[in-house]
């Protein structure tokens, strides 16, 4: 049994799984049920001067029959009275002293920051999270991402918060920037104890093609919202990794963005996160998903022989390098497992139209059927319906072949194959020593 507990900025959490500041942390009743389900911590729905929200306020992208691959919202901060929120925070901490409650905050003036930080601490908050990310509505009023996009303002407000706060201060960053290091370094310079990222990305989730109004529609109008969910995980992973790799960012990271299960969480940890935060997956399936997160991460750590969550944090950072440092001589080819192949032909057409024309339906090297091996130079030949190698028309006879001489190892075929592990990329035994673009440039300079 691995030790899942983590310490982030001095805050002890029973596990790295926190509820992100969002509708699932809107009320004390919800947060308590979240803790009952197993969540280690919760970042309270952002407090500030309460506002009014609109209907509808959520949108989703479905793809190919799968619901909610991405999600967006035009909801703003809490629309409930501050008094009620603080009373509930107090009750939650009283009942769940071992779970972490971080209060997310967003106000304008220095005086307002002083006041709301004091009230948060009085309510028992374990830490604060400054919401400099929300990219809709509040930024029109000079808050949220309007701050996150201005490193100097971000740094100043962070230093205010540190001045007023006796508990750790996290800064939650907006991803709507050129280089996440700019606000990240500003937050560190402002004295923050930790960084949470990413907040949502500016988006229009879609257009109602009947009414021609963007979604989510508020009558005949809509506005841009913040995009999140499984779709954005790669964007968030990149930003977390960039900060984790940067020596100037010497504070821990709470990773947020498209985390649905323990595997996603493990990826964030491996790329430098100490805790992770979840919202969309909880809105889709409920608090109960944390059960497999805890259990799955524990079993994974056991299998890898790691004794604690912290041993995983940052493990993948050494492998994250600049393009110029990659080995230009590293070579892979695709292998198709004929026993697993169901003959759908997707690898064939993907390689033919979208890659390098190296997968064929007849055995033998490319030039035996395609004229010449030099793709794109040789004569154009008619592409007839595939002639599968044994002439059969049952699914099992549709096993395509890789022209191993021509395959450039791009791995597109593997990615489109619907059968897990049917196509794998195998390393070609390397005859040349590693040489990167940086090496070549250095050589040509000497």
């Amino acid at each position, binding site marked *: 049994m691995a030790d899942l507990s983590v310490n982030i900025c001095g805050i002890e959490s029973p596990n790295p799984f926190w509820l992100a500041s969002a509708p699932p942390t809107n009320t004390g009743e919800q947060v308590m049920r979240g803790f009952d389900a197993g969540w280690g911590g919760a970042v309270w729905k952002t407090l500030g001067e309460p506002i009014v929200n609109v209907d509808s306020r959520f949108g989703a992208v479905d793809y190919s*029959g799968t619901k909610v691959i991405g999600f967006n919202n035009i909801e703003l901060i809490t629309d409930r009275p501050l008094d009620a929120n603080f009373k509930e925070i107090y009750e939650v901490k009283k009942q769940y002293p071992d779970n972490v409650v971080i209060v997310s905050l967003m106000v304008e003036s220095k005086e307002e920051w002083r006041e709301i930080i004091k009230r948060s601490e009085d309510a028992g908050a374990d830490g604060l999270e400054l919401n400099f990310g929300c990219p809709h509505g509040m930024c029109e009023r000079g808050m949220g991402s309007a701050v996150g996009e201005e490193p100097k303002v971000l740094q100043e407000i962070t230093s205010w918060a540190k001045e007023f706060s006796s508990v750790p201060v996290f800064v939650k960053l907006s991803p709507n920037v050129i280089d996440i290091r700019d606000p990240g370094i500003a937050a560190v310079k402002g004295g923050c104890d930790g960084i949470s990222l990413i907040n949502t990305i500016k988006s229009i989730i879609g257009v109602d093609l009947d009414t021609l109004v963007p979604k989510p529609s508020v009558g005949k109008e809509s506005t841009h919202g913040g995009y999140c969910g499984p779709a954005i995980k790669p964007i968030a992973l990149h930003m977390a990794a960039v900060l984790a790799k940067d020596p100037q960012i010497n504070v821990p990271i709470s990773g947020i963005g498209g985390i649905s299960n323990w595997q996603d969480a493990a990826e964030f940890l491996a790329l430098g996160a100490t805790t992770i935060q979840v919202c969309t997956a909880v809105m889709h399936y409920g608090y109960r998903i944390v059960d497999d997160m805890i259990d799955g991460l524990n079993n994974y750590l056991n299998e890898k022989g790691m004794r604690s969550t912290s041993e995983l944090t940052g493990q993948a950072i050494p492998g994250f390098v600049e393009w110029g440092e990659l080995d230009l001589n590293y070579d892979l080819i695709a292998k198709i497992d004929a026993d697993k192949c169901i003959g*759908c032909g997707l690898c064939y057409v993907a390689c033919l139209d979208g890659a390098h024309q190296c997968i064929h339906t007849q055995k033998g090297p490319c030039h035996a059927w395609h004229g010449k091996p030099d793709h794109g130079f040789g004569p154009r030949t008619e592409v007839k319906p*595939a002639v599968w190698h044994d002439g059969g028309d049952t699914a099992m006879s*549709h096993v395509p072949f890789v022209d191993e001489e021509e395959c450039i190892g791009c791995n597109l075929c593997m990615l489109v194959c*619907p059968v897990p592990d049917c196509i794998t990329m195998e390393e070609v035994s390397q005859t040349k020593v590693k040489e990167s673009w940086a090496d070549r440039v250095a050589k040509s300079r000497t």
Partner: protein
Amino acid sequence: MNDDTSSKLTISPDRLEKKFADYKPLYTESEALIEANRCLNCYDAPCISACPTGIDIPAFIKKIATGNIIGSAKVIFEANMLGYSTGRVCPVEDLCVGACVYNDLNYSPIQIGRLQRYATEKALEKEVSTGKKLFPRNSRKSEKKVALIGAGPASLACAAYLALDGVEAVIFEKDGLPGGLNTMAVAPYKFQTEDSINEANWILQHGVELKTGIEIGKDISLEQLIDEYDAVFIGIGLGTDSRLDLPGSDGPGVWGATDLIRQIKNNPDFSLPEDLNTALVIGGGNTAIDISRELAMLGAEDVRMLYRRSRKEMRGYDHEIVGASHYGVRLVENVTPLEVVRHGKKVKALKVSSTISDDTFELPCDWVVEAVGQLKHVSDVSPEIEVDEMGRLIVDSETRRTAHPKVYAGGDCINGGKEVVNAAQDGREAAFDMLKSWGISPSLHGKKYFKSFFTYNGH
């Protein structure tokens, strides 16, 4: 040419087949979307090869998934003008669905037939509600005209593709209704007579003329048609039921299977006798299974199929045999019928002998149904048209042209009795060969051809 769509053919709504519920009802939109999204969109998909008309199945399914129902239906009809009925009557388990790659993952294959029905039925509904034709009639008119004999699936398909490219197509049908076996024989829990007539009406309105009550060789001769038309298409199907001529079989209570099915489907005055308890069906093919199941579903207490060999040798599809067994149909193997035993006029029993022992015994029954094949139409056809030893008209396997250069044939009369979808394909191939021979490029070719192919070598 009859263009008046108000003169649609109809049939009395009060027939025995109306008692049958649709065993695979039209998908709801939810069901269709979920199923369509499941399709992997295979390239050069095995389901296409398994379809006799080669419908681009992934393409029409993809269009359902994007809500493009009109486009979806057009993909189907371009390859198969009888796409609506074949979506419902095809033995998909043995064709497209059986070839679905998901079978190799031990995963339920895409329900292609049901999606095909959804696309075509919804598109035809839309055609009616919007008044916009899926296939507006081609403005170009050719001088050519074609006579088609028999108004079954083969002729309907052939006539449709001809009419859409401006050829005058006239169908001669000896009976009163078009549709062939779709109208007269398909199991009513799959497809009912109205559906078939509606489909025929839809095809006719593209500019096909139907002349009913005209029998070739009687009212008009084949030679006359050959003289008067630029081509003739023979789609006469098979003849009436073959009969065993058992002693005692003359009289009430002994039926030919297709005749009995037709009574159930088309005759408003037909009903089962109240005291029908036991029906014995002689035969091991799909028609025997169909009528057995229909009788069982209509309430006959005890329906048994009698087959001269064992179940393994039966020609009927396995899934149909299992389907019938759900309704209590049982199988008596290894028997051959000898005589119908009557008590007065009434059938009392069928005397049978075992084919594997010397036993002879009587099986008490009320009805005997003979499902032992249909006669070929050999005698109806001109001596100029060759037939093989099985009585099938001989045609070129690509073009469906007979030895007579102006005469084509398709459907059951060339293949001895296959599926509706095979007949539809025959009709289409024949139409395309006629069009091409007259220099007309078929406007609905059903396949995407590449615009051009060329070679350059860099010089």
